């Protein structure tokens, strides 16, 4: 885990193993670090990072979207509906989500292999989207959603922004949906709830929650929680996320209208 190894003749290979550089700890590191009990530094606890959303950036795809929330940068393309590859007849269409990190997207270089984290984010995005897409109208078809994470700042942010980007791309591709899916993350830090946590913030939290919903129908399509949160706090987080999703929904709708 600590070193990168593995020779692949299909790629240009580096040395057999290499390590990320180790940095000296700065003297004032401890004093500058955020400590439990201090207020949030960058924004108010209920604020989310500003969202930049651009549909239709990838003209080779049927639909696409690029989303940027400060450091998190995600591109998403939708191909399809196209004919399913496997021969078995399927009365409902299939939604296929693939997530890929660029090697330079995280603090530590990711070897360009599919790993468990890619799959886990893909599963989360798939769950958030699948109730919204009218797959019953698309027998024998597959919709491929490819998500590339260009820069990541926390898994929760990737799931939430990836979901928003994918739902926007589906709308851009003109695929029939019941509603746009919007997703928002929350973290519990001490007694406070911080929305849309960065990687550092979710690391110092007791637990995190990502809520995906269709604000137009007021329904929840997915909830993805990990960590340790009291039940009342969970319910509180869900309400806070849902409220913020309504705001984001109008941003997404606006971006789609402008792109027409």
């Amino acid at each position: 885990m600590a070193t990168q190894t593995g020779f692949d003749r299909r790629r240009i290979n580096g040395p057999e193993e290499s390590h990320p550089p180790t940095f000296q700890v700065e003297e004032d590191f401890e004093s500058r670090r955020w400590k439990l009990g201090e207020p949030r530094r960058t924004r108010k606890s209920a604020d989310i990072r500003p969202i930049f959303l651009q549909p239709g950036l990838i003209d080779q795809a049927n639909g696409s979207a690029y989303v940027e929330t400060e450091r998190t940068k995600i591109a998403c393309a939708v191909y399809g509906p196209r004919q399913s590859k496997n021969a078995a007849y399927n009365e409902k269409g299939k939604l296929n989500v693939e997530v890929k990190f660029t090697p330079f997207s995280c603090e530590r270089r990711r070897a360009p292999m599919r790993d468990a984290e890619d799959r886990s984010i893909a599963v989360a995005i798939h769950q958030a989207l699948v109730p919204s897409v009218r797959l019953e109208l698309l027998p024998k078809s597959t919709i491929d959603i490819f998500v590339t994470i260009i820069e990541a700042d926390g898994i929760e942010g990737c799931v939430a922004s990836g979901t928003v980007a994918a739902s926007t791309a589906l709308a851009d591709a003109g695929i029939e949906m019941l509603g746009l899916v919007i997703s928002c993350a929350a973290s519990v830090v001490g007694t406070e709830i911080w929305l849309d946590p960065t990687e550092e913030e979710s690391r110092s939290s007791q637990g995190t929650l990502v809520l995906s919903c269709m604000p137009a129908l007021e329904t929840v399509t997915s909830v993805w929680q990990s960590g340790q949160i009291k039940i009342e706090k969970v319910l509180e987080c869900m309400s806070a996320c849902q409220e913020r999703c309504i705001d984001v929904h109008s941003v997404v709708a606006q971006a789609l209208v402008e792109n027409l």
Partner: protein
Amino acid sequence: MQSLSKAEKSYIQVGLLSSPPSRSDGRSLLDYRSVALETGVAPLANGSARVNIGRNANQAGGGTEVVAASKLEVESIDDDGGVEGGRIVCTVSCSPSAYPHLSSGALDDIQQDMTTILHQTLAHPSLHPNNLSILPRKKSWLLNLDVLVLADAGNVYDALFIAARAALWDTKVPRTRSVEYKARKTTGTKPGGTGDMDVDEETPSGFDTRQIQNATDFELPDYWDEGEVLDGREKWPVCVTLNLVPPVHYLDATGQEEAATPLRLLLMFTFPPNGPADVQAMRMLGPGELKITQLKDLIVTGEKYAHDLYHSLNVKLKEEDVRRNQKARDRFEQHR
């Protein structure tokens, strides 16, 4: 998940929605099938358990069957991925015979999905036991929790977490005693070094064939039991899967019932000795959707089911402890 015809699906759904609800095996909505649990099933593991949900009493077969085993390994911190305080890695594998209709690719995918949920939940820092450290900054334990799904007759996630909890409950961490070697003066050592000096990697170690990077190591003292239990073993979470056929929900779905259910809510709770329960993880699975108020009600209700499960599980685990400790003590006496 097996595939059902539309008629079969509708038959199951109508049964669940009728009043009183009827399920094919005659259970009420909140009944579990019989759950069988045995710990210490793998003698070479540090902790193990076998769980069966819904074994057919007459034919002694069927049901969802899961085996979990934990194995401890020593890791050097820094060198081979070890971290201060030890770490936990969970892996789920599914026997192909549990999912005969799946291709190997699809089997890999569901294995990975189960692994992710189990690992993300159990390896979360909020549950980390305090006694996986051996030597500060040098050695720590790596706890590998391997869970094997032998048969899936529905409700596999509840079974996974029961088995995982039981195996972790059963896990004994070997007692270790730190040892300090007095290093012999060798040419490779730096002048001014005293008792705990570095032994140069190039110079052959004077002690044994193991590479000793530091003059401190540990040994495993011989003792009648296999070690101490994992710290805070009460807090390992339990999972309840709420199967949702709005407006009703039911527990412990069979494979067929799962195939007819559009949405499942997985809730993992941990119960601290005093104070209210914590939600440890939560997932929604399936193409259905929910109102947020419904979801909130389900979480609150789910805690009650989880609480019942947690208590009956604890009673059983304590019984198993007594049963096995008795055996171990007897065996130790024999060998003396």
